[in-house]
């Protein structure tokens, strides 16, 4: 099939790699390989000789791909970062979503677009999941520390749970600080004094 592209995905996390593959498969019948080990990345990619390389923007090994732009031999195909000049701003969208694509020289932008769109959608999902996870973690941590601070106040002042909570909230409001921060300070101070 003439539309089949050979795609290399650089991703160390196996689950993420599988999810990316699923998304790309939905965008067309492509030949997809995953590289998980980044030692000698440029050399590995050279061996696969792909049309498109996809890599997470946060991956520090990304710089290794930049040297592929300088094809060193006559048989080598120069690979450069995909940049669209169209109105949709696909490159900017990719960067915001956290993925970058490298394509071989002379590749028609129309052929890469569906692949890149699928990758962008998947990386946006990753980003959302990461944000949600971080937010949930933070909320849990904060609840834990507020509960501990509340317990300390109840013990030290002999008040009820509701009164301890009210006192924490009032202090936070008076000092223009977040309740979690006030609780954190109390727990740290108590730790130092005990």
């Amino acid at each position, binding site marked *: 099939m003439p539309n089949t592209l050979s795609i290399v995905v650089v991703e160390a996390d196996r689950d993420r790699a599988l999810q990316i593959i699923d998304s790309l498969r939905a965008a067309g019948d492509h030949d997809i390989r995953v590289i998980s080990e980044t030692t000698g990345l440029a050399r590995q990619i050279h061996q696969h000789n792909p049309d498109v390389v996809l890599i997470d923007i946060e991956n520090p090994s*990304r710089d290794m791909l930049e*040297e592929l732009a300088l094809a060193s031999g006559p048989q080598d195909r120069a690979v450069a970062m995909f940049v669209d000049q169209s109105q949709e701003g696909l490159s*900017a969208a990719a960067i915001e979503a956290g993925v970058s694509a490298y394509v071989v020289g002379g590749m028609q932008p129309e052929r890469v677009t569906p692949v890149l769109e699928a990758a962008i959608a998947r990386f946006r999902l990753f980003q959302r999941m990461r944000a949600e996870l971080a937010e949930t973690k933070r909320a849990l941590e904060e609840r834990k520390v507020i509960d501990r601070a509340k317990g300390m106040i109840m013990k030290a002042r002999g008040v009820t749970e509701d009164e301890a909570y009210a006192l924490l909230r009032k202090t936070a409001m008076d000092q223009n600080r977040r309740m979690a921060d006030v609780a954190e300070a109390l727990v740290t101070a108590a730790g130092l004094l005990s």
Partner: protein
Amino acid sequence: MRNTTLSLGFIPLVDAAPLIVAQEMGFASQEGLTLDLKRAPSWSSLRDMLSFGQVDAAHMLAPVPVAAALGLGNAGMALDAIMVTSINGNVIGVGKDLADHLVDQGHDFDFTDATKAGHALTAGRTTPLKIGVPFPFSMHAQLLFYWLNALGLPAPDHVEIKTVPPALMADALAAKEVDAFCVGEPWGSISVDQSQGSLLLPGSAIWQRAPEKVLAVRRNWADTETDLAQRLIRAIWRACQWLADPGSRLLTAELLARKAYLDRPTEIIDRALSGTFTVTPNGVQRHADEFLDFHTGAANFPWRSQAQWIAMQLALRVGLDQTHATKAAGTVFRSDIYRAALRGITPDLPGASSKLEGANAAWTSVASESGSLTLPPDRFFDGSIFDPSETTRLKNRQLS
């Protein structure tokens, strides 16, 4: 003056100090600016963040905007350097195997003599020497190419330059992907500590005055946000001036060590700031003068001739037309914006925007806008002199 927030990207290196100090020590707020500093995972990502407007300005390898002007490795966006933020600051080191080999040959690791070190490095080799650098378009790569070429050891027959992110350099040495490396601090010291290797030379042993990092912006930003660009230059210029005071060293190391910035021990960071290095696993200490210069001798002035030297070297390396390359690079270092920002603030604005590179063996007096200023020694290790006007003349002679 209304307070404006600018977002600036940086890579966690000692030479990101001017941006960090500008924000932390209040030089930015003095200009009504708040700098939102964003740490980037790699040079390519930082370049793209800048190109696509996720940051307004970035701590950047001096050759990146030049390479972009030559159509090399760019994202289609013209980038300009509005000031130089540091001179020198790289180290060349070798992995354990090569270090042992050099010791067997009686090399003394003097950390000074580039000719001797270069010959020792390549003596008796049958395969090309593999050297890791952080980015293909970097002063690290440029210095290595220049150094080994001048010694008659050109790439790719004698040397292979490979891109390896500094954090992975120790692994690459262990996996024998590279034999040696050239990186910025603190990564040289960290790689030597982790790999049991040794430091061979400071970058300044190859060129005494190599423009290492610049403050890069999108060209259209520089031309439309003139007022902001000038305020940003002044804030970072004052930070550089503060950094040049030896009394600032201790605090600088503490600031940079913070989790949001380099997140590394102050002791490692201080090696670059003091210029005193542990060069071998058994603790031999060596000192390099002017190892990393943030300010002295008009260090922050973006000389057009610096951009032209970089362009000429890049053109030689990848086989582009040299006249065209030096011409395209001339406008990338924006001495015009820099002058406008600092006129009346510093007397150290040179009369010319271009100079001979490599001509000064000692501090030399040159004309400035307000009289004269002195420029520091800037020799190449092989004594050659780069005359930016010469490349054009040479070419014209060949054509006629």
